[in-house]
């Protein structure tokens, strides 16, 4: 952080640079999260989610979880977002096709969410967190993270591998059953075509 300050040649102390970066990343992620919710174009929604994920990765960096930030960028931005874009492509009729709930439902939902947010903020402000001095002596937290994953958290680690196996089987099943649906859809389309031909003849 000091090196960044010296590069910028600003007269700032070591504490304000992380604060500025925090507000930058938090602003990016919050603004693009609003974009995800408000945008009516689904491709633009996906791009807004990309910026939210990048902002959250920056927050991970500030929390000194560099490995997590890299994993976030690789898995989410590189994997999940590509998957979402493929889903958008496969289901695209019109990027602007809209179906909105009733205005009353929207008002009730937003009011409930604002109440939840107020409750969360009140809880955060009133909770008495133990102030803990940050441990900066750990040189290679990635090594410690790997040891924790295969030591303290071995059971969830193995369960995650089981979940991945099950999801792989499930995804293969979904992809396989699609073929039968296609045949049925083709048969249905042929039936309606022949019906129309009979009407016209």
């Amino acid at each position: 952080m000091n090196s960044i300050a010296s590069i910028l040649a600003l007269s700032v102390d070591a504490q304000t640079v992380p604060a500025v970066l925090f507000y930058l990343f938090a602003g990016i992620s919050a603004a693009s999260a609003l974009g995800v919710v408000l945008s009516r174009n689904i491709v633009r929604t996906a791009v807004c989610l990309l910026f939210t994920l990048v902002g959250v990765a920056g927050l991970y960096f500030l929390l000194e979880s560099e490995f997590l930030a890299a994993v976030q960028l690789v898995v989410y931005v590189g994997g999940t977002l590509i998957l979402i874009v493929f889903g958008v492509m496969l289901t695209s009729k019109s990027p602007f096709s809209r179906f909105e709930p009733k205005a009353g439902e929207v008002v009730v939902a937003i009011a409930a969410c604002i109440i939840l947010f107020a409750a969360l903020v009140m809880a955060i402000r009133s909770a008495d967190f133990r102030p803990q001095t940050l441990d900066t002596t750990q040189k290679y937290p990635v090594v410690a993270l790997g040891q924790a994953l295969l030591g303290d958290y071995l059971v969830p680690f193995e369960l995650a591998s089981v979940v991945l196996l099950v999801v792989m089987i499930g995804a293969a099943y979904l992809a396989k059953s699609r073929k039968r649906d296609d045949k049925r859809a083709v048969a249905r389309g042929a039936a309606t075509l022949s019906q129309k031909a009979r009407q016209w003849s």
Partner: protein
Amino acid sequence: MDPLALQHYLAVGAILFVIGLIGFVTRRNLIVMFLCTELMFQGVTINLVAFGRYLNNDLGGQAFTIFVLVIAAAEASLALGLVVLLFRQKNTLDADAWRELKG
């Protein structure tokens, strides 16, 4: 107060979670609803990492964030497969088209 305290990160997590929740209940597009669940995941994982960093100073928060990432990736593949299948059935992404699932 410290310029960057735990509460700042918790506030960002709460903001992301509530924005995602608003999107989830007010939008009807299946893919947008799915993206909003991803937003809520982000809010939760920020909380996990910040608590692990500031309160316990151990790696529990980071480890469970990695598990959340795994579950989110698995959920993304299955959910998008299901969305594509649902789209082929009714030719629309409107969640209201599947009202009969309420039973």
